[in-house]
C-alpha cells in the first residue's frame, strides 16, 4: 500500500528539506513593491503563482505535511498490531535456537553438578535481568529473562508527537492571532491590530500603559526595558503588572509581550526662534499642533509633529521635531529639528533658525499581543517527542538466556547469550558480566 511505505516517508522528507530552503532564500511576507524591486515583475508573478511569498502557509507545502501525517498514521496502524503481539504475547515461548547465532554467545564448562549451578545461575540472572523464566528441554535447563519490552512502543510515541505538534499548530492558526499594540505612557486600548492582515481584534479587557522605563549599559546598548501595565475590566482596574522582554503578561488566554519601544510625541516643547536679520531671539512653549507668530510679524511657526526616526538622505538621525515656517506670502517650508543635533536648522541658512530647547521625554511601548490555544497541544507534543526519542534510541528490548547442559556426573556446560532489538553494545556488556559472575560462583 502506497501510504504504508517508508519510501514515501523518505521522499516526503527530502521534498520538505528542499522546499523549506526556498523560504529562507526568497523574501517572506513582504509587500508587492518589495518583491518587484528585488526580483522584477516577471519573477514576482511566478512567486505569486507558487505562493513563494508566504511559502510555509502555501497549499503545496501544507500538502507535504498532510502526506507526512497520513504516512505516519498508516505506517503506525500497519505495524502496531505486530508490535503489540510482541509486547503482549499470549504465551511466552523460549526458543534457544534464536540465541545460537548471536555474536556475544559464550560457553564454558564448569565442574559442578547441574542443579547446583542452576540455583546459583538463577540468582545471577535475576539480579541482572529481572524476572526469570525456566524451561527444561531434552538437553537440559534454560533460564530466560528479559527487559524493556515496552520500549518497542517508543517509536509510536515519537510519531504521535509529530501529529500532536501539527494538530497544535493547526489549532493555533485557526483560533489564535498575533498582533501589535503601541501605547504611549498613560494611554489605554482594548483593540489590537493583526500583524499580517492589519484587521482590528477586540480584546476581552483593556490594557493601559502606566509607565515605561528603559535602562542602558554604559556601552549604550539597552539593558532592560519595562512597561508597567494595568488590566481594566468593565472600567475597573483588575490588576497591574510589569512586563519585560522574556517576562510577558498572560491573562485570559492572551499574552502580552514587551517587543520594542520608542519616543512618543511630546505634548509640548520649548522652541527658540532666532531672527538672523534683527538678532532677536524668542523662546516659546508650543503645544503639539500649535502656531506662534515669528518675530517682527514676519509670519508664523507651527509645531507639526514628531518622528521617532527621522530619515535624512538615508541616515537615521533619531528623534526629530517637525515644524513649518510660514513667512511672507508664498514661502512655506517644512523643517526637521533632530534632537541629537540642536543646531541642525542653522545648516538651512534661512532668515529664521529654530532650535528645540527642552521637552518632556515620553515613550511609547511596543507590545506584541498573541493568543494561541494550540500551545498546550504543541507542548504536549514536545514532551512526547523528547520522551519518545529517548526510549526509541536509548532503551532496548533485551533478552538474555543461560543454557545448562549436564555433560558428566559433576560437570555442566554453560552457555550465555543475549539479544536486543537495538543497542547491541549494552547487551554484549550484560552477557560479559553474566559470564564473569557465573564463572565466579562456579569457582573458576
Amino acid at each position, binding site marked *: 500500500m502506497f501510504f504504508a511505505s*517508508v*519510501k514515501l*516517508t*523518505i521522499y516526503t*522528507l*527530502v521534498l*520538505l*528539506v528542499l522546499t*523549506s*530552503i526556498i*523560504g*529562507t*532564500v526568497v523574501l*517572506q511576507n513582504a509587500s508587492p513593491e518589495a518583491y518587484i524591486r528585488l526580483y522584477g515583475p516577471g519573477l514576482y508573478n511566478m512567486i505569486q503563482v507558487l505562493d513563494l511569498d508566504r511559502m*510555509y502557509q502555501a497549499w503545496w507545502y501544507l500538502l507535504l505535511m498532510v502526506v507526512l501525517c497520513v504516512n505516519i498514521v498508516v505506517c503506525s496502524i500497519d505495524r502496531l498490531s505486530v508490535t503489540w503481539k510482541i509486547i503482549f504475547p499470549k504465551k511466552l515461548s523460549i526458543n534457544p535456537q534464536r540465541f545460537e547465532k548471536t555474536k556475544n554467545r559464550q560457553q564454558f564448562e564448569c565442574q559442578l553438578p547441574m542443579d547446583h549451578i542452576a540455583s546459583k545461575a538463577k540468582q545471577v540472572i535475576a539480579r541482572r535481568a529481572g524476572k526469570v523464566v525456566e524451561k527444561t528441554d531434552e538437553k537440559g535447563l534454560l533460564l530466560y529473562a528479559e527487559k524493556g519490552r515496552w520500549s518497542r512502543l517508543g517509536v509510536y510515541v515519537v510519531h504521535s508527537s509529530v501529529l500532536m505538534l501539527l494538530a497544535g*499548530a493547526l489549532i493555533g492558526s485557526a483560533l489564535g492571532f*498575533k498582533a501589535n499594540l503601541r501605547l504611549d505612557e498613560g494611554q489605554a486600548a482594548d483593540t489590537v491590530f493583526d500583524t499580517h492582515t492589519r484587521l482590528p481584534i477586540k480584546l476581552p479587557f483593556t490594557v493601559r500603559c502606566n509607565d515605561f522605563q528603559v535602562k542602558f*549599559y554604559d*556601552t549604550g*546598548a*539597552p*539593558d*532592560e*526595558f519595562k512597561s508597567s501595565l494595568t488590566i481594566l475590566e468593565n472600567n475597573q482596574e483588575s490588576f497591574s503588572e510589569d512586563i*519585560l*522582554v*522574556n*517576562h*510577558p503578561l498572560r491573562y485570559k488566554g492572551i*499574552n502580552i*509581550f514587551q*517587543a520594542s519601544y520608542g519616543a512618543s510625541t511630546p505634548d509640548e516643547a520649548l522652541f527658540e526662534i532666532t531672527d538672523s536679520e534683527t538678532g532677536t531671539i524668542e523662546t516659546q512653549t508650543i503645544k503639539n499642533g500649535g502656531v506662534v507668530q515669528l518675530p517682527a510679524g514676519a509670519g508664523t511657526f507651527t509645531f507639526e509633529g514628531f518622528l521617532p526616526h527621522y530619515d535624512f538622505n538615508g541616515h537615521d538621525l533619531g528623534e526629530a521635531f517637525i515644524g513649518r515656517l510660514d513667512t511672507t506670502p508664498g514661502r512655506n517650508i517644512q523643517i526637521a529639528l533632530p534632537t541629537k543635533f540642536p543646531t541642525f536648522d542653522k545648516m538651512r541658512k534661512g532668515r529664521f533658525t529654530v532650535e528645540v530647547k527642552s521637552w518632556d521625554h515620553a515613550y511609547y511601548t511596543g507590545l*506584541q*499581543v*498573541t493568543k*494561541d490555544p494550540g*500551545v498546550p497541544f*504543541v*507542548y504536549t507534543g*514536545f514532551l512526547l*517527542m*523528547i520522551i519518545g*526519542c*529517548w526510549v526509541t*534510541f*536509548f532503551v532496548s528490548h533485551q533478552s538474555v538466556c543461560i543454557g545448562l547442559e549436564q555433560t558428566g556426573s559433576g560437570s555442566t556446560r554453560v552457555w550465555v547469550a543475549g539479544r536486543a532489538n537495538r543497542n547491541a*553494545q549494552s547487551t554484549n556488556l550484560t552477557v560479559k558480566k553474566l559470564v564473569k559472575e557465573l564463572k565466579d560462583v562456579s569457582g573458576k
Partner: protein
Amino acid sequence: MNSSLLLSAATFIYALASVFYIGSFSFKKQAFARLGFWVIVIGLMANTGGILLRWVESYHMGYGHAPFSNMYESLVFFSWTVAALYVFVEIKYTESIIGVFVSPLIFLGIAYASFDPSITSKITPLIPALKSNWLIAHVITCFLGYAGFALAFGFSFMYFIKPKDPEARRLFAKLPDWDTIDELTYQMIVFGFLFLTIGIITGAVWANSAWGKYWSWDPKETWSLITWFIYAIFLHLRLMRGWHGKNLAIVSIIGFLGVMFTYFGVNFLLSGLHSYA
C-alpha cells in the same frame, strides 16, 4: 592569567593534537594517536578553564552572564563540546585513530573564533532578549547536538579515505573496521538527533516566552528543522531501509553541511531574529 590567554593556549594545544592524529594516520604510528589523545585532554582542560574564567570575568565587569552570548563564545563552546564528546567516545570505544578527522574540527572551531577579525572576543553585556534561564539550556543542548553530528561527520569521512582493497589496507591497518565506523556514526547521530530535538524544543519554548510565538519560520529555525529532517532521513534509511556504509555516510555528511549552514550560513547570508550567534 585571563580567559583569552587560556583560550589561545587551548587553540594551540588543539592544533598540536591534530598534528599528532594526522601524523599517526600518515605514518601509521599508533603511538602518535595515543599522544594526540592526551594532548586533546589537556586542550579540553585549558578550554574548560577559559570558559569558566570568562564567566567569572563577565561578573567582574558587572554584566554577569554565561559565556554563550555571541559568535566568539559560541565557537569556543562548540570546540569544547566536540572535544568533550570525542574524549568520552575514545575512552568508551577504545579506538584512538578515529580522531584524525575530528581533531582538526575541534581546532578549526576555536581557531576561527580567534583569528577572524570580524568576530570580536570582547565580553559584551547581554541584550534583553537573551536574558532568560532558557539561554543555558538552549545553547548546551543545541551544541551537544552539533557535537554529535560533528563526530559523525568525522567518522563518515573515513569511508572516503580508507581503501577497500586489502593490499592497500595494510597502510591504514590501524583504522577500525567498517562495522565499528558504521556503529559509531550511527551512535553519534542518535545522540546528536536527541539533543538537536531538545535544542529546537527549548528554543521554541523560549521564543514563546520572549516573543509570543513558538515558531516563526525564522531562517535559523527553518534551517534547524531542515537539519532535523536530514537526520530523520538518515535514521529511517538506516533503521527501516537497511542502508549502511558509504551511501549512509554521504547522508551523514549532507546532514553536517546542514548543521554548518544552520550555525554559520544563516548568520552570514540570511537575516533574522537569531542574530547573536
